[in-house]
Structures are given as structure tokens and as C-alpha cells.
């Protein structure tokens, strides 16, 4: 899949990676899921992890978050992440029980667990994160008074309140209508650029991936006779992979984004 180039200077010296996976094999339970994974994620990059259901997108995210140990290979996390202190996470949807009372400020404060942020600083960071997602001044408002789209932005704000260097998102627009999802992606793209974040996002939204990704990690199902799938990496402006599956997937994305017509 070949992504059209963005306005970035390819000769610019690369910053050290925040996260590097070298020849990684990971699995869930007894079964290996992905093998031979090679990824290097740097600040300012916007990675989209795409692929069919069961191809290992969530497994790859869990590995990136350090929740799954590789069975082979190694995962290097930059000291700049300070463990999980500067890692933000946006789940697919809010799992909080709607019967539980919570304010926006408390909801965001829960996301600061383990970040070492003290009380006064916590208020500042929460206020700043709300401003970033366009919901400034809502700290005291009940969380459940917000619409689905706003709640998804609050999930993003909760992740941003940690001042992350690496932002990991697991299908964050799965529960949103197309227009709200589009707004969400635009917001993420702007924040990623302004805040110099490395964003890793699993999604089925090929349109957004084709439009916004600097890099795409396509998780592939196991080939006939194989036990594990793999990850094909496509970089915007980089060489196109040659296997039929990836090319077909890329065409679908390009068609959706209008960046290319099928030949």
C-alpha cells in the first residue's frame, strides 16, 4: 500500500524512537498471533494499525503498551516515556457505569493515576487537556451530561492530561457516527502535530488512515499453512509493498480517501 507523501522533509535527521519492536513474536494464550514484527515509532508520527478482525491489532497495541511480553525479539521503550507516565491511552468506549456519579474533572483525574502529578498541577493539566479538545471550563459538569461524541473527546482529554509522548488508541471512533468520527480524527491530527505526539491507533476506518497516517501497520491473517500473521509496514512516500493482500487493502483505503482511483 503506498501512501501519498506528506509535506515532511525525508532528509531530516530521524529522532530516536519512542518505541521499537525488533523481530517480535507475540501471542495470546498458547497461540502466537503475530510474528516477525519490526516497528520503530517516533515523535510526530501518526501510526494507524489496520487489518481484519482477529488479525492482531489489539495484540499489537497491548505489546506497544507493555502489557504483553514478546515470546521472541525485543520491545524497547524510550526512557522519555518514564515507564507509563507519559503514555496516554484512549479505549474504544467509556466503560464507566452510568449510574455512578462523576464530574469531568474526576473522570480526567482518574486518568492521571500513576503519573506522579500533584494536586495543584493536576488541576492545571486537566484544564489544559480540556482546552485542547475544545471543552474548556467543563471541569465541574457531570460527565454523563455530555453527548457520545463529547465523551469520546473527554476520553482523549483524559489521555492528554498525562502530557503523553506516546498516545495509544484502540478503535476510538467505533461508537461514533461518521461525521463525529471525522471531527475526532481532525482533532487528533491537529493535536499530534501541535504536541509532537507519537500516535498509535488501531482502527477499521481506512478513510482516516489513508488521510492522516504517516505510517500504516497492516496486520495480516496467517497465510494458508502458516500459524501466525504478520505486520506489513507502509510509510507515506515510501516504497509500496508487493503482496496482493496489502495492495488490495491499500487500494480500498485510497479509494475511500479519494486519493487514488482504482486501476
Amino acid at each position, binding site marked *: 500500500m503506498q501512501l501519498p507523501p506528506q509535506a515532511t522533509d525525508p532528509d531530516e535527521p530521524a529522532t530516536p524512537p519512542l518505541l521499537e519492536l525488533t523481530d517480535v513474536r507475540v501471542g495470546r494464550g498458547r497461540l502466537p498471533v503475530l510474528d516477525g514484527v519490526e516497528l520503530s515509532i517516533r515523535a510526530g508520527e501518526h501510526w494507524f494499525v489496520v487489518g481484519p478482525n482477529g488479525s492482531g491489532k489489539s495484540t499489537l497495541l497491548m505489546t506497544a*503498551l*507493555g*502489557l504483553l511480553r514478546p515470546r521472541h525479539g525485543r520491545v524497547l521503550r524510550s526512557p522519555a516515556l518514564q*515507564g*507509563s507516565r507519559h*503514555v496516554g*491511552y484512549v*479505549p474504544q468506549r*467509556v*466503560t*464507566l*457505569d452510568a*449510574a*455512578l*456519579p*462523576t*464530574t469531568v474533572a*474526576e473522570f480526567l*483525574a*482518574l*486518568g*492521571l*493515576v*500513576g*503519573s506522579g502529578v500533584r494536586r495543584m498541577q493536576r488541576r492545571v493539566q486537566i484544564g489544559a487537556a480540556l482546552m485542547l479538545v475544545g471543552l474548556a471550563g467543563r471541569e465541574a459538569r*457531570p460527565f454523563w451530561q455530555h453527548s457520545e461524541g463529547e465523551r469520546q473527546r473527554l476520553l482523549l482529554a*483524559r489521555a492528554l492530561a*498525562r502530557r503523553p509522548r506516546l498516545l*495509544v488508541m*484502540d478503535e476510538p471512533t467505533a461508537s461514533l457516527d461518521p461525521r463525529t468520527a471525522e471531527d475526532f480524527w481532525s482533532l487528533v491530527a491537529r493535536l499530534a502535530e501541535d504536541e509532537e505526539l507519537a500516535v498509535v491507533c488501531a482502527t477499521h476506518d481506512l478513510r482516516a488512515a489513508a488521510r492522516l497516517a504517516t505510517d500504516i501497520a497492516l496486520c495480516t491473517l496467517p497465510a494458508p499453512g502458516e500459524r501466525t500473521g504478520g505486520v506489513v509496514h507502509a510509510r507515506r512516500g515510501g516504497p509500496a509493498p508487493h503482496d496482493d493482500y496489502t495492495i488490495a487493502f491499500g487500494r480500498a483505503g485510497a479509494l475511500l480517501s479519494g486519493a487514488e482511483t482504482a486501476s
Partner: protein
Amino acid sequence: MIQAWREFLDSWALFGTAYLTGWFAALLLALLGVLVVARRQVLIGLAIAQASTFGIALAIWLGELLPSVSHHAHHGPPLLASIGAAVVAAWATLGPASRGRVPDAVAAWIWLACSAGAVLLLAHSPHGTEEVETLMFSTLLGADDHDLWMFGVATVAAITVIARNRRALLLTATDRETARALGQPVDWIDRGTAWAVGLAVGSTLHATGTLYTFGCLVLPALAARYLCSRMVQMLWVAPMLALACSFAAFVIANSADLPPAQVAIAAQALVLVVARLVPLLRADVH
């Protein structure tokens, strides 16, 4: 009212230890109950309490089967069996191994199996069934100094641990996926919660009975949901509601010659209904 208060003070010499035990138990259970309610696992409290009753029945049955095993009515094997069964049930429903199971289904199985098992074990025991029935309907006045110390220490320990880790506990209770992603030791928190709830329910049930234990575990936390604007507030509002209800209930029960545990739970149930109206009234005002 003044007369009731005087009678209550007069009864202190006889029942003071039981009152204090009941209040500490109410504080402890209501505090832990916030975590149970936040996890949407209310029925688990009932299952753990019933498992604890089964543990006591098992200890009594073994005591009759093996006379060398003491079955002192209050401490020793029955207490250990009560706590042990509660911890096992809490582990099955709240611990890391509970993931992937349907909580209500597990809770229902434990409740049914333990209810039937407890009665069957003691079906031919001269006093066994009576003892289990007494436990199920609560026996607050049997608490002694040993219980008082146990609940005093446990309450202080629970307050300290929960106050220090309140956000991590609430995040894990309400959003495990994010808690794990942010590096929280979710499995250890599950284990700790299971142990704490199991120990608290097992020891409380042994001293106060199923009704008081289950009631104090869930009713104050459920009421606090309606009275608080933040989850963190529930951690002190629920114990205060439990304490206030138990305090008023013991005074009323003493004056009207009613069973104190039942009065306390009736009061908590009433508070829950009143608390449910508060958000509706607020909405009308706004």
C-alpha cells in the same frame, strides 16, 4: 426521643461492645461496598455472605462429625471457616480468575449452592439448622470484645489503604482496560479487593449475620450514588450513611425492643429510597 436515648445509654453496659462492633462493621462494609458497587457486582456481596454461612455450617457439621474439632459457638473453626469460605467466594467473583465469567451467573450459583448446602449439612443436627437460620437473619447482640478489636483494626486499615489508593482502586473498578494500559497492577488490585471483601464479609457475617452484612455492604453505597456528584465522595458518604443508620437503628431498636440489625437494614433501605428522590428533586428545581 429523650427517653429512648436514656434507655440506650442504660443498655450500654450490657450491649456497648455489640453496638461498637456493629458500627465498625457498618463502616468497614460500606467502605468496601463502594468498590463492589463501582464494579457493578452488587449480587456478589450476597453470594459471598451466603458462602460464609455455608463455611460456618461446614464447621458445625465437622464439629459434630469429629468431636475433637472444637465447634465453639463463636470463635475458632466456625470463624475460620466463615472467613475461608468468604475469601474463596470473593476470589471466584472478584479476583483475577473471575475475568471472562458472567458475574451474576457465578454469584447466583454460589448463593444457591451454598444456601442448599448449608441446610443439607445441618439437616440432622440438633441445633445446626437453628444456628444457620439465626445467622441468616442476623445476630448482632452476640458480638464480643474480640470482634470489636478485629473490626476496629480492620476498619482503620481499610480506611488507610483505600484513602491512599482511592483513584487507582476506582479506575480499576470502573475501567480495567485503561488502568492496565496506564501501568496499574490490575491483577494485584483484584486480588487485594477479593481478600479484603472476603475477610470483611466472612468475619462480619460470623458476628452479625447475613442480613446486616449484605445490607451494610451494598445499601449505603447504592444510596451514596444518588447523593454524591463524584465517585470519590462515595468513599466517605457511604460509610457515614451506614454509621448514621446503624446508630439511629440501635437506639430505636433498644427502645422499641426490636432486633437491631433488622432495624438498621430497614433504615438503610429507606435512606436508599429517599436518596433516589434527591436527583429527581434537584432536576425539578433546575
